[in-house]
């Protein structure tokens, strides 16, 4: 098991070659994405709690509900992202006349989320330390809430956490290239294009968002 995880992380080519010999199974990929969703939910709760403190006292009773919704949304978002990534890769690979079923693609994309669990585990303490030491002023004006939120999210700690997340996403993309190559029988170049284009666009959009928000 440990060897398999190690192969997935640092030698994904060999890992997926072995997996191609096995029957398609979504159990482990689902667990990977689910764990990622749990950590994302924890991060969402941590980052939502201070902002809820800005709400007026009469809205305080909604705090647990809002936190539960945000945690659930983060968990569901992870699962949705898994499927969305698989669909995008599958569709792009069709351009390169890729062969292989969608379930296999979904399985390998799920495995590829493993580095992001590590990334989420790294950024979670950063978020915790930042938000735990934060004093949020109580505001009632929605415009003020938006402004305060914008300024809080522009903190260097959170900006660096986003960059770290992008690094682990790139690590995931590296794994996905090998996964798409095996699952859709693509050349290395075509697999790199299939994965690199959408992931690259996403990374660029995130970095530009950081730049325009004044984080760097």
């Amino acid at each position: 098991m440990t060897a398999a995880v190690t192969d997935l992380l640092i030698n994904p080519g060999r890992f997926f070659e072995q997996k191609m010999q096995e029957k398609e199974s979504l159990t482990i990929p689902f667990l990977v994405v689910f764990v990622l969703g749990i950590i994302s939910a924890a991060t969402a709760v941590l980052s939502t709690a201070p902002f809820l403190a800005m709400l007026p006292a009469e809205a305080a009773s909604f705090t647990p509900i809002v936190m539960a919704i945000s945690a659930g949304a983060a968990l569901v978002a992870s699962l949705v992202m898994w499927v969305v990534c698989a669909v995008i890769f599958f569709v792009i690979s069709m351009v390169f006349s890729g062969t292989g079923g969608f379930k296999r693609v979904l399985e390998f994309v799920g495995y590829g989320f493993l580095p992001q669990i590590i990334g989420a585990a790294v950024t979670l303490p950063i978020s915790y330390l930042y938000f735990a030491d934060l004093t949020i002023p109580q505001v009632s004006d929605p415009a003020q809430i938006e402004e305060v939120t914008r300024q809080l999210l522009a903190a260097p700690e959170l900006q660096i956490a986003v960059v770290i997340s992008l690094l682990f996403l790139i690590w995931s993309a590296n794994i996905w290239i090998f996964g798409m190559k095996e699952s859709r029988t693509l050349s290395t170049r075509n697999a790199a294009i299939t994965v690199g284009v959408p992931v690259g666009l996403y990374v660029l959009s995130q970095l530009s968002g950081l730049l325009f928000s004044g984080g760097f």
Partner: protein
Amino acid sequence: MNYAVCVLVCLLCMAAVPVVAQQTTTTDTLDSASAAAQVTVTEKSIDPQVLMRGDRATMTVTITNNGGVSVPISRAFLSDASLSIPVDSYDSVGSIGAGNSMTFTFTVRADVPDGVYYPRFSINYRSAPSLRDYIPVKVESTELDVSLVKRPDTFSAGNRETIELRVGNPRENTINGISVVPMGEGVEVEQSGYFIGKLEPDESANVSFDITPQETGTLTFHVTYRNGFNTHVLDHTLPIVISEDKRAARPVVSNIVMTTSGGVYTLSGDITNAGLKVANSVIITTGAPATPVEPNRIYVVGSLDPDDFSSFEVNFRADDADSVPLLIQYKDEDGNSYERETPVSINRTPSSEEEREFPIAIVALLIVAAVVVAGIIVYSWKKKA
């Protein structure tokens, strides 16, 4: 013959008539002089008793015939070389009967320096020497005395103060109809005027006015009074110079600590009343370019006695501002509002600088993560090759 006798008788009669007539006239003259001697001045008065220069007075002279026969009077008049007497003569008096009195009234005007004057009152009889009497008229121009007995050390704009005047009568006679009316630009006076009325000699009366000056100027008190039927006006001016009240409340902020979180600054400190009067309804907030935000847009301290202090805390946002004004608003005992402004620097507070510290440890973690991820990716591709 008869004719000659008649002529002789007529000549004798004609010679006798002058002798008889002369004897009758002498007797009548002696009777008139003795009768006129019974006429005397029994009363003389002047109103007002003491004139000021330029005043007019009414002089009344009463004569009485104490004799038993009527005395014919040809003329009564008043004369003086200094005083002005517009109508100085009664030319058709007639006779004053036995035991009767007769009053003569004259108006005199004192366009003369201060002093005592003696106009002469004369009665001319038809067949007797004149009667003369001198009536003293005192002219003394001392005016009412107006003095300020209470006023503040300094005047502040919009600050209500009380001014107290004392009006005294240093004259020998009574003064009537005294009123005081304040007038001045840039000064609001609650009372439109004050009527004192009559002041006996050496009496005084106090009057108070509540004034609220708005700007530097002069407040004039018009004191109007009557001496007899002569109206006089006396102005007493009070310069109003707006300056800082030496005893006023003086809120001072100290021990300022500023922290920031999420762009919202929290400014806390102490406010002390370093003045000598109470500062009421003390309110603290921040002014432009700062924007006050919840929970403490405004901090209400309340009343601060002299040397008393209180803590405060305000919240605000200030984008791209190096300093913000801390506004302290308060009122004095009369309800006048004041505002003091204390600039507070944003960049120099330690808490703010700590917030600006770049997270070096997290950057190091980022670098490590980048190296690890890059290494793993490179390694995975080498393995593949």
